[in-house]
């Protein structure tokens, strides 16, 4: 088990090395391919209504749902250490003739412990005018770390719940049909956020319980947990230091014999 992990991580390292040009030991913000490469449009077509019934969706998969305005729609995806997930949602509103005014829509993201996660960037909440036909929302989470203090709310590897709902709308517009789309994608942030330590289990509800809530785990690839580009930086530093050391040594030797040695000695 351990050995396969190490081998897998080694292979990842190799991939990183092969993929990186000699000078590009630095930041390598390649877009995440993130495993969840299910076919476009193959995503779920329903959304859950609570944390418990949240519909699992893989990263990169487009989830859709038909709902009534006023519903609380829940999806759940998984994110691993070193990823910075971005959630995007689009709500297609009912035709404006049927509506009575502006509405405000909002996405909230919660981690596997149901703690609300703040958005670094993105229009988490947006008002749609009375004439608007759709509204786009986005939320970029902080980078997921492999471990944090229990007193911190940093994102950790595990489940992430997305809740989409309307926060303000005219009373008459409640219950009208709307269509929602949601997609979660991640960017790899690299070793800058690689911290020490790792969770024993990802933050997925029910990991220790006997009951099967495994549908939520479906999307989580096993984190090797120890690889980061810090190994490359430190290794490269060691090589450079060794070279510099040899250089310095050679410099003191000079080219010929030491000056103070008497000729013929």
């Amino acid at each position, binding site marked *: 088990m351990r050995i*396969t992990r190490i081998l897998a991580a080694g292979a990842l390292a190799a991939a990183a090395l092969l993929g990186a040009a000699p000078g590009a030991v630095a930041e390598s913000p390649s877009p995440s391919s993130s495993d969840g490469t299910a076919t476009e449009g193959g995503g779920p077509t329903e959304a859950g209504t609570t944390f418990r019934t949240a519909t699992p969706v893989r990263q990169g998969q487009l989830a859709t749902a038909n709902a009534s305005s006023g519903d609380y729609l829940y999806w759940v995806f998984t994110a691993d250490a070193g990823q910075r997930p971005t959630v995007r949602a689009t709500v297609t509103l009912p035709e404006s003739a049927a509506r009575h005014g502006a509405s405000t829509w909002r996405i909230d993201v919660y981690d596997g*412990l149901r703690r609300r996660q703040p958005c670094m960037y993105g229009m988490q909440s947006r008002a749609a005018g009375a004439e608007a036909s759709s509204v786009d929302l986005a939320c970029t989470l902080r980078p997921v770390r492999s471990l944090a203090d229990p007193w911190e709310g940093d994102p950790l590897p595990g489940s992430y719940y997305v809740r989409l709902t309307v926060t303000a709308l005219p009373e008459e517009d409640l219950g009208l049909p709307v269509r929602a789309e949601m997609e979660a994608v991640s960017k790899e942030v690299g070793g800058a956020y690689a911290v020490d330590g790792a*969770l024993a289990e990802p933050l997925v509800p029910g990991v220790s319980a006997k009951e099967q809530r495994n549908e939520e785990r479906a999307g989580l690839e096993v984190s090797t947990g120890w690889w980061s580009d*810090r190994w490359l930086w430190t290794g490269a530093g060691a090589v450079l230091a060794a070279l510099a050391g040899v250089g310095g040594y050679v410099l003191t030797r000079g080219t010929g014999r030491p000056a103070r040695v008497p000729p013929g000695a």
Partner: protein
Amino acid sequence: MALRRRLTTIRRMITRKRLAAGAWALLAALVAGLAAPAPATAADGPAAKEPPKVELVLDVSGSMRTRDIDGQSRMAAAKQAFNEVLDAVPEDVELGIRTLGADYPGEDRERGCKDTRQLYPVGPLDRTEAKTAVATLAPTGWTPIGPALLGAADDLAGGDATRRIVLITDGEDTCAPLDPCEVARDIAAKGIHLVIDTLGLVPDAKTRAQLRCIAEATGGTYTSVQHTEELSGRVSQLVERAADPVVTPVPLEGAARCADAPVLTPGLYTDREAFGEHRWYRVDVRPGQELRASVSIAADRPVERDYGVLMRAVTVHGREIVRGSEAGDGRTDLISTGLRYPKAPSDDDVEASAAEVVCLQVSNSFSAAPGVTSEPGLPLELTVDVVDAPDEAADVASFGLGRGWWLLGLLVVVGFAAGLLWGWVSRWRVAVWRTN
């Protein structure tokens, strides 16, 4: 026991070293080529359980004659939608149909308000029979929503299947003082995990408010229907939703202080917590384990604009270990928070490795909107997990490794200086040796 734990600790240390050695194996890996890490396999669904039960409650009151849905009467639209829904019901769903206001056309309020009956019993569905039963309906009487909901709850009683009532009506309840919203809240408070979804056919403001209240009280949804296809689509969606496997939480009652609190094992629980009430639970955590708890409190009735929830992990002596808190404002279905408490592995004796009792205190700062009852309490959902403690961080950075141009610059300078120094020292030594 202690020995095993120590072995685990040692093994962890070895693992770390081996991981460091893994870095050296990197070259080997380069040669070995690429081997993608095995993705986690998708797990299967939960084990087979009781089939989910759904009851459709249809309003057959006189007002259903109104012809305002796609040019046909509300009743005709409902019948058409029912036919489509009955065709699409998933095999494993037990479906029943109940009517309200179908039989008594008279003016006697008391009799009219008892007019609800089961049209088709909850059970394996015979589509033809159910369709025939629906076809006989004609708009007739009053709108006793409250009694119909009570009847439907009885129809679905028994077993631990998931239960759902889909209420389709075109008007508000005409049978006060029995407020259907209160009825729904009482049904939800029985802890039988019954969800009521409501659909209003061309609803007016009062109907909307009432149906919304019923849905909110049980965690259901409210839909306003203007067209026939919306009706059939939505009802089918709700019936299918009932068929989705879901974990049913275990009802329990938290105590007012830690000493009396129920001891929880990992799982999913529900409770009720009144406005401003504190509830305590206890969890045993052994050294080397991590407690994970999350709580959500649902706003199942109109509440004031600002609200919050606080969960604290406290020792038996009252010291707060860690807390999770959240506050919010505006329209919401629930508010939730969670906490993690990793307990460090104990080094030695057996006594120290005994489980620690961690008290969990859950409190909320919801307040009821004016004229809203505070009984029963707000629904509270609690999840508890106990897993192995994490590999604690020995450094801020991963394995204490460095990163960045400053690091490289420093290493080059220091390496160069060391090379120079070494060169001078060796030259000096050679010179001394030669001269002697």
